[in-house]
């Protein structure tokens, strides 16, 4: 373990710069995804055919294609066909933001549909208007029940950000590869990287499970 710490400490500035890029990618994907996903889920409730179905179809299509294929497709052939060059950072961040948007949309859509009918009907028979029912009853109940899954999907975005390294984005995984190429100590380098993800993702996943349990109770 001390060897791992030695390597991490020795290359701390490189690791920090990688972490900063990872966090920037995640910030774009998290904020964009949460904002876009909530917006689409809400729009889909009011206009299911116009908004809900097309995004559901897009969601199913992106679920079927591996993320690496999507990323490479956006980075190489698409840009070549369009005759443009986009910084791989933006390509990665945009793809993850889109995937996160679709994930948040899916989670919220299911949560909104999962609100027990009797709770909505109880509000209706109490004379509450439809819009108020949605904002004060359906959405808060759905959002609470979706919190666990939303947290899990944000953790997944952090993990998926390492794919950016494969198209030369200088995030944590790419930085680790470079360090390993320089000193060739893969055990220490990749153990350090694994421990970082373990330290961040494990508590978040436990938190997500806790939220899911609380809502179920």
């Amino acid at each position, binding site marked *: 373990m001390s060897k791992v710490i030695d390597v991490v400490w020795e290359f701390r500035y490189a690791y920090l710069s990688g972490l900063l890029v990872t966090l920037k990618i995640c910030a774009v994907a998290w904020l964009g995804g949460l904002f876009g996903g909530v917006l689409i889920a809400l729009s889909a409730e009011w206009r299911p055919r116009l908004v809900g179905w097309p995004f559901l179809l897009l969601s199913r299509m992106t679920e079927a294609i591996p993320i690496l294929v999507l990323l490479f497709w956006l980075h190489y052939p698409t840009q070549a066909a369009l005759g443009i060059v986009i910084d791989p950072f933006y390509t990665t961040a945009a793809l993850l933001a889109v995937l996160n948007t679709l994930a948040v949309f899916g989670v919220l859509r299911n949560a909104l549909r999962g609100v027990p009918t*009797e*709770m909505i*009907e*109880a*509000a*209706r*028979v109490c*004379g509450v208007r439809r819009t108020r029912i949605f904002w004060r009853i359906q959405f*808060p109940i759905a959002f609470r029940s979706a919190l666990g899954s939303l947290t899990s999907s944000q953790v997944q975005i952090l993990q998926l950000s390492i794919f950016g390294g494969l198209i030369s984005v200088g995030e944590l995984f790419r930085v680790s590869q470079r360090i390993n190429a320089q000193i060739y100590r893969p055990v220490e380098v990749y153990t350090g990287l694994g421990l970082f993800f373990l330290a961040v993702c494990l508590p978040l996943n436990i938190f997500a499970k806790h939220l899911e349990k609380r809502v179920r109770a």
Partner: protein
Amino acid sequence: MTPAVFQESAGEPLLQAEDLRIEKGGNTILSDVTFRIESGTFAALAGPSGSGKTSLLRVLALLDDPAAGAVKLWQREFSPATVAQPAAAARVYPRLNYVPQMLGLWPHLTIRENLTFSLSNHSQPRISLEELCAQLDITRILDRRPGSASQGQRQRAALARALLLDPQVLLLDEVTAALDRALAAIVWTLLQSFVERGGVILASTHDAYLAERCNRLYRISEGCLRMERTQ
């Protein structure tokens, strides 16, 4: 103020079912359901589990469509399609109120918020929140969320939510199922005072003792509804 359309005269039915046929999964579970309930009537609805009590109450609450027949409230025909329109819904609810077996309490709100949430839309209740909660013995759980209350307390909270809105027609689905006999009798007495003010209650129950205390008893048997007793 009660809209003119809802001002009933004595003896005129507030709730009517005309030749209702109710289907579930393509099977007819109730047919030829016809009755009229006048103001001041506390009617019990009895029948074995799965006989269609909940389905009938849901149709009468305009939440489900019948396969045939009509539901009339205040001598006007209504259907789920008509009350889907906000203006029609505002004319019907909460003058018609329904407490389902699952209660439908909102889990993210406290019991107090559950009771007062829909009050803002309507006129001052005839009975105060404090008085009603004291009668139903739920005062001490008002600031708890439904999840931390017992089933019996939740049932009384759901009933209080409906009563606070001062409905004219109240449909209750097994709302005393989790209460002991003494508490159920107190609830029944409270409901009797509600009908004495001119309301109508149709309550499904498995409890023969409570059913006996109603002034009318309907029983569902083999897909038919018949009036067994009236006073």
